[in-house]
């Protein structure tokens, strides 16, 4: 059978091409445009090459923000992943309470970011917030607007509260898909609870867990709204993460060139890490699959 050749078929991908162009490519190109030019105002730009990139690479401010960002992501992953698995393992498998838990755990995921920030901002206030007031009444020196540790703890606890559910729900879905026969076989083999987790549950939920880790990494690495609402990046610069710093630079100081160079590097880092995750994930499926 002869295939019909019709080059007009290319027009069929035009809508998608336009959509991607307007949603991603063109905005990105304006950023690229800013990153290689400088201006003295009046909408007059001139070419500076890679100067902004060089400046940002040697900027202590950016490296500090990056270090804070990496620490933040590492800490919340180290808490949320094990905690999420633990919650998933202890959730009821079926019946009313299973549905109840699922709904209850989905609730934080449905709250808009700035509302979450506001909730915790109020919750943690020493004068009127339940948490802040209680801690202060117990004699604990807690003030997230002034104390470095208090600010970090607040931001981390807030993220754990907001997002552990996501990890738990994904892990729960993975656990639910394990056939009963595995648990029965484990009983017959006299495997301990730890071995059941180590050799049955963990390998079976590894796939969804990687997705959960990837999602949590990307989201936490780009976090802006919640810490901005709660601490505004302070005290000092202690909770100024990459996007907060970026916004300060781009909109606060109107340094368009450095901010654009910064955005592009930021974007590349996320792209790189996501690519590494993706590779690990696909290899996980294929490992020893000869």
């Amino acid at each position, binding site marked *: 059978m002869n295939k019909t050749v019709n080059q007009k078929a290319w027009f069929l991908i035009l809508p998608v091409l336009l959509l991607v162009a307007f949603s991603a490519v063109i905005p990105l190109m304006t950023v690229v445009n800013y990153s290689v030019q400088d201006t003295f105002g009046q909408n007059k730009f001139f070419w500076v090459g890679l100067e902004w990139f060089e400046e940002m690479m040697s900027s202590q401010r950016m490296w500090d923000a990056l270090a804070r960002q990496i620490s933040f992501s590492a800490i919340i992953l180290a808490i949320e992943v094990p905690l999420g698995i633990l919650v998933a393992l202890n959730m009821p498998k079926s019946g009313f309470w299973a549905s109840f838990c699922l709904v209850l755990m989905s609730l934080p995921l449905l709250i808009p970011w700035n509302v979450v920030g506001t909730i915790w901002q109020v919750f943690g206030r020493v004068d009127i917030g339940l948490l802040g007031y209680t801690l202060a009444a117990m004699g604990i020196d807690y003030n997230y607007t002034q104390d470095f540790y208090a600010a970090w703890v607040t931001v981390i606890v807030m993220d754990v509260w907001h997002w552990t559910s996501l990890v738990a729900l994904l892990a729960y879905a993975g656990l639910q898909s394990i056939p009963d026969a595995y648990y029965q076989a484990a009983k017959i083999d*006299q495997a301990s609870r730890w071995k059941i987790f180590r050799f049955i549950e963990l390998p079976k939920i590894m796939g969804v867990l990687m997705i959960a880790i990837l999602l949590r990494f990307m989201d936490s690495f780009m976090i802006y709204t919640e810490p901005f609402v709660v601490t505004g990046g302070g005290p000092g610069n202690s909770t100024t993460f990459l996007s907060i710093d970026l916004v300060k630079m781009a909109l606060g100081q109107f340094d368009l060139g450095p901010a654009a160079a910064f955005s592009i590097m930021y974007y590349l880092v996320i792209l790189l890490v996501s690519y590494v995750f993706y590779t690990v994930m696909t290899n996980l499926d294929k490992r020893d699959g000869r």
Partner: protein
Amino acid sequence: MAKITLENLAHSYLPNPTGEDDFALKELNHDWADGEAYALLGASGCGKSTLLNIISGLLHPSQGRILFNDRDVTMAPTTQRNIAQVFQFPVVYDTMTVRENLAFPLKNRGADPAYIKDRVQQIAHMIGMEDSLSHKARGLTADAKQKISLGRGMVREDVNALLFDEPLTVIDPHMKWELRTQLKSLHHQFGHTMIYVTHDQTEALTFADKVAVMYDGRVVQMGTPQQLFETPEHTFVGYFIGSPGMNVLEATVTGDRAVVGGTEIPLGQSFGTPAGKVELGVRPEFASLQSGKKGLPVTIKRIEDVGRHKIVRTDFQGTEINIIAPEGAEILPDMNRVVFDTAGVNIYSDSWRVAPEVV
């Protein structure tokens, strides 16, 4: 190795069973002799897996007791029963190597490392996987995985019983024969009590010394393959076993005569006057097609030649009667009578077999 006794055992998945219909497994008394190979045969949903899970302790019965060597284990958890079970779908520990998989049950029981090494080698040889001992179990074929499951089931020598829950469902046909034969020779070698659940009659009949046929939550007959073939105790056994199954015809019986659809046929022996719904059962192997005036008048619908014999499908007043004719037999147009060999005729009252009167 142990004798397994079931006493008044019954199970219902409902919390408060009222009628008999609520029971997935109806009351049952039974002895599984030490060292015998049994098959539990029945259609899906007849309660055979329920029974197996009660024996293995994954399920606790609603009533009755189970004894292993006269010791009550009804409420004992699986781990205390010291049994091995192989499931329908391969259960392997993906991240472990084949060797670790096979050693796992022994290791968990704290066996001596040197013994584990020997034993694993031995089992690997038995299931033909010596070459892949160091491979990860992940990524092996379903066949190989199921062989590992079988191996893990057999790795302990001191088990009370070895239970198989349709273990060959996922295995390729040619491997099925091989593994079944292997299981059988293992049984001869070690003399474990084996219980093998299946819905495949060939599998059951070739594997087991004794086959328990289950129907609607009940063991309707337990016997050797020959007993199941010659004297099915229940009409279900008749048509479930055999290919095609037994012909069952409504009849009225008085003494040594039966009347089927207006035609009288001799039975050879007396059955008295059975009450209830009376049926006559005869296997296709004991029916023959003849010309003349004797026997039931039938019309031939079609003839299936399966190579070693012919299956003649006939119609008798709306009921199908199957006949097995020898491969060489000629089937002529005037052959329109079915005659039964009296040795193969069984009489049923309300589906249960009526024993002939001893003269």
